[in-house]
């Protein structure tokens, strides 16, 4: 930078004006502050009325937290609208007489810090009775504590990392860290092993190159696959880690090529794996890439195009369109023209929201047909969700002592003719 610092012309003359401007600034600030205070006061009074009253017009809010823009937003929007449809159904069929529900969806951009502040916002809104979300396990980690302190139920339709429900030492000593956290998705402990089993027995692959994105979900899943594949007798040709947001994988592709692997396993989201598979096939390495539910999205095929052909993904549950009970859900989703992808978690989000709504009904019935005061309502809903037992659109919805779903079905999908096609569905217990 230049040595001589040029003063803007007429700076000295401005001094006088500055004081005058300062004074008017003080007045302006005080006016604004007073105005804002008045407004917030009105706002909070409004909220209090809504939740405290047990009159016929009560409206409760179901919070949603998911990435609604940017990375992972295709699946994130599927969660938002899955919940929306459940809430619409509840209102239309009057599931909880005298209580209307509405959705408050917040965008976490797949960032843990944003998820945490969204959780705080949801907890702070007295009309929110429970939350569905988030999409990413790493985001969930930062939200669990917030919901737990507020005694508010949180049900994720998609988090699969085992530590979220079974604690850090889940392999040896399971213990539930947060009693307000539930999920309708099964865990990676099952998913990673299910994938390894299919790779070894179904695809007859012997040498896998394992890549992950260092996130809670991706690294956990890749580690479980790695262990399970070796246990079956397969060998690991190499491992590597990528950063989320990376775009150039040429060095990784060269390594995979040199390693002689006959498949790649990727733990992470579609945002990176679609680029890896494209660059892999571009370098004439025609081996399939396999991943978890994080890459089971139509976007993966749209972006990777021809390169996606033959790639595989495991996902929790059974394909939504093979579930007879999910037919009307899918029809509604399509007819409303909602954005995003209901395929992966839409139906699970519907069931998660339904579990909260049914819990509210159970609490109301147990309390003589009246909603308890808002501070008690939340903790009672947590207990009621724990006791959930009903037939949802994805199958039976009930939770074990850790908050995990008892529905342990998994499916392997493969890209065939530009579409995800289910190739194996099963329950994995091993």
């Amino acid at each position, binding site marked *: *930078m*230049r*040595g*001589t*610092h*040029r003063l*803007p*012309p007429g700076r000295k003359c401005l001094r006088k004006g500055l004081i005058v401007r300062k004074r008017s600034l003080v007045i302006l600030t005080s006016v604004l502050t007073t105005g804002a205070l008045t407004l917030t006061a009105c706002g909070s009074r409004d909220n209090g009325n809504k939740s405290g009253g047990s009159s016929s017009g009560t409206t409760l809010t179901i919070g949603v937290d998911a990435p609604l*823009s*940017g990375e992972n*937003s*295709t699946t994130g929007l599927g969660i938002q609208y899955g919940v929306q449809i459940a809430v619409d159904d509840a209102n239309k069929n009057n599931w909880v007489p005298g209580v209307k529900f509405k959705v408050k969806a917040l965008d976490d951009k797949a960032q843990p810090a944003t998820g945490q502040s969204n959780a705080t916002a949801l907890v702070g809104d007295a009309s929110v009775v429970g939350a569905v979300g988030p999409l990413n396990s790493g985001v969930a980690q930062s939200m669990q504590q917030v919901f737990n302190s507020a005694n508010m139920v949180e049900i994720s339709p998609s988090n699969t990392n085992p530590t979220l429900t079974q604690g850090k030492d889940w392999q040896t000593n399971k213990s539930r860290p947060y009693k307000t956290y539930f999920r309708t998705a099964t865990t990676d402990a099952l998913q990673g092993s299910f994938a390894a089993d299919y790779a070894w027995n179904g695809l007859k692959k012997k040498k896998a190159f394992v890549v992950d994105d*260092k996130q809670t979900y991706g690294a956990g899943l890749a580690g479980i696959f790695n262990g399970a594949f070796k246990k079956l007798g397969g060998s690991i040709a190499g*491992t*590597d*880690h*990528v*950063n989320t*947001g*990376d*775009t*150039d*994988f*040429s*060095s*990784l592709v*060269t*390594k995979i*090529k*040199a390693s002689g692997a006959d498949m790649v396993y990727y733990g992470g989201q579609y*945002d990176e794996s*679609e*680029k890896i598979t*494209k*660059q892999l096939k*571009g*370098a*004439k390495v025609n081996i399939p890439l396999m991943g978890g539910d994080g890459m089971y999205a139509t*976007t993966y095929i*749209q*972006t990777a*195009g021809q390169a996606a052909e033959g790639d595989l993904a495991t996902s929790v549950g059974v394909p939504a369109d093979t579930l007879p009970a999910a037919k009307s859900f899918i029809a509604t989703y399509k007819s409303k023209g909602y954005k995003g992808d209901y395929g992966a978690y839409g139906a699970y989000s519907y069931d998660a929201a339904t579990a909260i709504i049914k819990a509210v009904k159970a609490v109301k019935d147990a309390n003589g047909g009246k909603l308890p005061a808002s501070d008690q309502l939340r903790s009672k809903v947590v207990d009621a969700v724990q006791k959930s037992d009903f037939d949802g659109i994805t199958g039976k919805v009930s939770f074990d002592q850790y908050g995990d779903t008892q529905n342990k079905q998994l499916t392997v999908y493969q890209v065939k003719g530009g579409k995800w096609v289910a190739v194996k569905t099963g329950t994995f217990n091993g």
Partner: protein
Amino acid sequence: MHTLPQQLANGLLLGSMYGLIAIGYTMVYGIVQLINFAHGEIFMTGAFGALTVYVYILPDGTSMWAAVPLMLIGGGIVSVLVAVGAERFAYRPLRQAPRLAPLITAIGLSLTLQELVRNFYPGADKSRAFPSLDATHSIGSVDITDADIFLVCAAIVCMSSLAWFVRKSRTGRAMQATAQDPDTAQLMGIDTNRIIVVAFAIGGFFAAVAALSYGLKYGNIDYRMGFLMGLKAFTAAVMGGIGNIYGAMLGGVVLGIAETLASAYISNIPGMQQLGGQSWANVWAFVLLILVLLFRPQGLLGERVADRA
């Protein structure tokens, strides 16, 4: 180590792309001492400009031989317009302001451009497919694609024309004069405002060339692509000596090769397993930057200039 030639080629290609973008940073800095942090987004808009030509203007099934030059023109027009517009409406009014003001403006502009594309370009909130040139050729043990060839040729042509332009043409010499001392240059009858516009325009066009290569190589673009590429290119410009156009290219290539080799081989060194691999590539790239700045604060090809920090 039999993968070394391939990894070097990978690094060289990535580095050429960094270098092309770095030119924009370095030229603008050389003339107005402004770090144009919105340059990454100028790169990004260039990619969307090229995509627009391909998807919405050209008829389906146009051969890539015809499409690529037209896409380059489309991307170039968009990038140059955005760069010149940024100069005219965001930076010129702040020319006499303290240095921090244009810097903050640049960051604001960068966010604005990202959000504009995300909100108003159809489908830009997630990756959009870009026509890729992925026919592969083998040269010895090295595989390269058509897109790679385009990138290398474009980088060479761009660099040599720029070198000629700056040294020989009347405008180029006026640029050098403005870089040395804008006030005196103005006294000698040089329209410095015009020179600054030309610097922004050249930077914008080079960014568009890089953006087109990016799309052809990776086959998809999104509204965030400019952030990381811009940051890396800025690093390359600093490493090579900011203000020096050859330094920008050299810095880019050094950075690209360093990243690729670090990602490929560091994990093979015994005891360094945890510090290698793709996820550590950026760390090693910045370690290299720190080393260069420690021992040659002016950058690889930068000159020690008394009145510049």
